[in-house]
């Protein structure tokens, strides 16, 4: 827990009010809490980071290490601790055979928040950064993506208070609380399970094998007698482009109606075999 006194040289290089990240908090939410604690408008902490690093663009989904380092300096935390606010470590572990792995493309990210989490703790869970996240499992509420004025929620709205709508400044804690159905909760749990397995059990080789399996599965579905075979490999095309997002991988898994238990059981068998050999 950071504790800074006037005798510490970083008193003057840290924010006036420092904030400690909560367990499983996302980077964007943490930055907003920094803004709020310091009585700043939304995005001021980010603006300071950009100014201090002489950069122009900040990606809350895949932040540059330099930005994370500067943030750590501002709040008196180590780079490792700040990195835990993102999935960058997990993605780095899965990369290797793929030139560049993303969680999801930035332009497809839709911010969703749980009004009850905002109300209680001004908290945005890290899992909302995952593709297909749409339910808060803590409160079993649907994540809200739009304000009642129909404006899409944005993390950092210039000149607006943190955790408020960019247009009407309505506090996000006043967003409607819509109870998720049992099916929606189960679907969310399934998606979370897939990502947790990818992050905890995934390796570059396993990911590559999974992609090959999905490629073959797609080709077999698309090949019909008397019809032209599919032109180019879908996933191979992505890898040639140099970027792959886990959003697409998981979408393919769902579309292929693959049994996740079988896929991950295979991985577990791998692990047991390796352990036996060792």
């Amino acid at each position, binding site marked *: *827990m*950071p*504790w*800074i*006194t*006037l*005798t510490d040289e970083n*008193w*003057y*290089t*840290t*924010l*006036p*009010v*420092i*904030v*400690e990240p909560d367990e499983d908090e996302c980077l964007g939410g943490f930055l907003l*809490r920094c803004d709020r*604690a*310091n*009585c*700043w408008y939304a995005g*001021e902490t980010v*603006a*300071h980071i950009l*100014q201090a690093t002489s950069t122009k663009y900040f990606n809350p989904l895949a932040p540059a290490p330099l930005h994370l380092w500067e943030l750590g300096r*501002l*709040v*008196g*935390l180590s780079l490792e601790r700040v990195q835990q606010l993102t999935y960058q470590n997990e993605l780095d572990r899965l990369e290797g055979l793929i030139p560049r792995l993303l969680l999801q493309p930035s332009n497809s990210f839709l911010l969703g928040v749980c009004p009850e989490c905002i109300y209680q703790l001004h908290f945005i869970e890290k899992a909302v950064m995952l593709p297909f996240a749409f339910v808060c499992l803590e409160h079993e509420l649907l994540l809200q993506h739009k304000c009642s004025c129909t404006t899409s929620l944005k993390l950092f709205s210039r000149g607006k208070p943190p955790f408020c709508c960019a247009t009407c400044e309505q506090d996000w804690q006043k967003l409607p609380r819509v109870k998720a159905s049992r099916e929606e909760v189960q679907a969310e749990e399934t998606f979370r399970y897939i990502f947790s397995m990818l992050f905890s059990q995934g390796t570059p080789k396993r990911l590559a094998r999974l992609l090959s399996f999905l490629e073959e599965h797609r080709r077999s579905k698309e090949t019909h007698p008397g019809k032209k075979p599919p032109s180019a490999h879908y996933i191979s095309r992505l890898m040639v482009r140099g970027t792959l997002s886990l959003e697409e991988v998981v979408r393919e898994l769902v579309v292929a109606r693959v049994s996740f238990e079988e896929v991950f059981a295979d991985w577990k068998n791998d692990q047991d075999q390796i352990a036996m050999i060792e």
Partner: protein
Amino acid sequence: MDSSLEQARPPFVPFKDFVETAFEKRFQGLLHTARRNRSWHVIAAAPGSGKSLGIHDFLLRSYSHKQGDPARTSLPVLAIRAPKNAGREQVLGMALASAFGVVRQMSWSVRRSWLVRIMAQTEVGCIIIDDAQDLSVAHLAFLKELTDNLAAPPYERQVGLCLVAAHSGTVVPWQATFAGPEILWRQFRRRLDTEKPYCIVLGHTEEEVRPILATLEQFYRRQLPDVQLQRWTKPIFTWLTNSVLDLDATGRVTMDHLIRLVTTTVRKAYEEGARDVTSAMLTETAELMILRREEIIAIDGLPQHTEEVG
């Protein structure tokens, strides 16, 4: 002196610690009063008395801290130095903002309201401004606005204020100004403490010099094993209350003069390999400070010893 002995001897270490002298007790007593009672004072003392060191020590002991969980910063004492040659209120605002940490770029209209919020949030109870003789009218007007906003709803927070200044004679900075008929000064005057609005904190008497010499003696025993300084209290006091050093004829000694005299003498004794200071050494240093203080020294040739820097 034997050059091999000189080479083996470590460099001289001057005394730099803070000492809670009689002056500091008087001075910090006023600061404590301002913090406790949220009262306003103009506090003056001779240059070299130890005001800045006293403020620094007071600040360090105020238990200011930043903690992450829960996110809370406590800054009971906000101490800054008055901006020099910069009369605009924005400059004072920046100096106050810098005391909290990283200063975010923002317009002045935003910063002035931000300052009120952050001071209330961090529980600032007393503002101390060192070198207050350098404040401008605009600075004082801003201070009044800042403290008024803190005292008003929703914060309702009274804040003490200490304007600490160097003075000469019996004139206390700002006293004549606050006696003026303008509304701003009348409002300022009204806020000053009833019992001690203007204070001059006096330096050390002969008896108060003695325990300081005892502290210095203890420190320098590591370097001059037989050093005895207390026996020189009377002559030291006499030298340092000379009219050249004690311009206002207060009959008191400032810490700066005392430390300067002792450090210069002890350093000289150390470099000569002595185990104690002598009357001649002290007299020589006193003469430098009194009779030869305006002397211009011609620097020529090459130094005897070259010290590595960095």
